[in-house]
């Protein structure tokens, strides 16, 4: 009797195990197809970029017969395409916007985060800062355009530097303030004993300790600056000064039928971020998760 029961239980167990396995297999197939849907456009784009437009039109699905780097070579060297210029402009704008923003928000985050600098109304001020997360860019960029034209900054890359640095202020300050607020105040006291003033404490002790948060902030901002389109289209119309996103919009408009070239340009524009993501995916995810705050 006992043995029979055991065998029955065992059979039920193996049956349940198989059921589970089949379920998992089906689930994996479903999830993999979904993932395929996410990845295929990228893969297709990369494949297109190493073919010629003629090949693409003949057989859009086909694998490249031979890898042709000619599109990339043309992008990098052709003075008519001037792609290197746009790349350079994007680097320029991102770099200086990051620099400006980092100076502002590390200090601001320190001031907002540390209890030593608490004063009546600081919380309200911080709320005002975060409030703009609710504001769509449309609610300010017309006035920003007028402002830039008034000061002769239209059609300069500095207009984008100034505005990008400003748009990134709320989230960055928030992230830095959160991090600074978690550092123990004993550090402050010890540095004060050693004769540091407030700025010295910030610069020599606290800022080096905030490196992880700073890295997240810079990564997040770099991604946003590199990808931004609306302000780039609005503030800079001169062909030589365009950043990658707006240049690509025009590029595809003008060379609309040269799909292979256009695909190559998209790949190059995407490359810096994707490379960073390959190495720092956790930090990206962490940064974007932390950056999502309700206004």
């Amino acid at each position, binding site marked *: 009797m006992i043995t029979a029961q055991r065998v029955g239980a065992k059979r039920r167990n193996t049956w349940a195990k198989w059921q589970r396995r089949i379920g998992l297999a089906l689930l994996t197939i479903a999830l993999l197809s979904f993932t395929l849907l996410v990845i295929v456009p990228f893969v297709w784009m990369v494949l297109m970029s190493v073919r010629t437009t003629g090949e693409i039109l003949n057989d859009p699905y086909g694998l490249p017969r031979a890898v042709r780097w000619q599109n990339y070579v043309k992008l990098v060297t052709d003075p008519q395409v001037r792609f290197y210029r746009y790349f350079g402009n994007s680097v320029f704008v991102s770099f200086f916007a990051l620099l400006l923003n980092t100076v502002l928000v590390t200090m*601001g985050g320190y001031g907002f*985060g540390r209890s030593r600098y608490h004063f009546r109304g600081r919380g309200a001020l911080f709320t005002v800062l975060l409030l703009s997360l609710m504001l769509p860019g*449309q609610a300010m960029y*017309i006035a920003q355009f007028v402002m830039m034209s008034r000061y002769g900054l239209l059609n300069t890359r500095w207009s984008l530097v100034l505005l990008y640095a400003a748009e990134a202020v709320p989230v960055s300050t928030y992230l830095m303030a959160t991090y600074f607020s978690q550092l123990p105040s004993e550090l402050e006291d010890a540095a004060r004993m050693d004769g540091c003033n407030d700025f010295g404490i910030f610069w020599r002790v606290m800022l080096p300790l905030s490196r992880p948060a700073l890295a997240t902030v810079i990564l997040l901002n770099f991604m946003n600056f590199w990808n931004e389109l609306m302000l780039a289209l609005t503030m800079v119309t001169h062909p030589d000064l365009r950043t990658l996103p707006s240049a690509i919009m025009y590029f595809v408009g003008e060379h609309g039928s040269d799909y292979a070239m256009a695909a190559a340009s998209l790949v190059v524009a995407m490359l810096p971020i994707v490379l960073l993501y390959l190495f720092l995916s956790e930090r990206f995810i962490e940064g974007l998760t932390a950056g999502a705050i309700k206004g």
Partner: protein
Amino acid sequence: MEAKAVASTKLSPQTGESGTRRRRRGWVHSSKPWGAIALFIGPVMVYYGVFIIYPVLATFYYSLLNMTPTGGRIVTTFIGLGNFQRLLNDGIFIQAVKNTLRWGVVGPALEMLTATTLAVLVYFKVPLHRFYRTAWFTPVLVSGVIVGLVFRWVFNVDWGLLNVALRAIGLDRLALNWLGRRDTPLWCVIFVHYWATFGYSFILLLAGLTAIPEELIEAAYIDGASTPQTVMKVMLPMLRPTFVTVLILSFMGKMRTFNVVWALTGGGPMHSSETVATYVHTLAFGQQSLDLGYPSAIAVGWFAVVLVSVGLINRWLSRRVEQ
């Protein structure tokens, strides 16, 4: 309530104010380091005031003006609420509002449904979960311009991926000119933006799930609950605060997104996929831009609408939590 706090910590860590309260008493008698406060907080607030707050207030003011750029200068006339009056009779604007609202309903619904399902699956560590997590998040990082242009090709009538695939499985009748008709472009925009952003909602929801104390989930198992029961009765209710936050973020994203739409359809053809964001841009900086006051009025009016909607969503969902 405890759980609510825990779940939201992950998304919105405290700003250290609790620490402040503890120490404040000690600082009452000593003088405040005002110099240092000004040094640290001053620059960022001034900068923010000049480049964000001022432009917002200025846009509100512009919405009452007629602003015509003439020969390098901008000629302004005060017309009061005239712009807002014009707005109510603007057929294209009404079309844009309808499109955007349709997107604001369909987009977040689709996104929340799939992202929550996927987050729960990945939470239970289905095979390959790390790979999924990285792969699904990738489109979030790519510029909307690139996404929009790639999908312009995907939807291409002759050789686009979609139509080639449809013809390959014999559905030639469904191989439409997706971006050239009047009835499909908006749905293309909705799909593409979903494709580009669901990974973000997914990651946020996953973070919310991870923040649920494991003891609670274990307790449910010990009480004899099956996995589906645990998900429905314990995890999803606990996820609610995060869910509401992500829903609102998703909704606000649809209300303001410009780049994907601009690169994919540019609002066309014949305004069939026009959103408020693209319409403002077309009016203000398009080929025949004549007046900056009217687009300002649209931006201001639209901001009010979005703010009210977000308030309503928040209130509606919070009330249902209390029941």
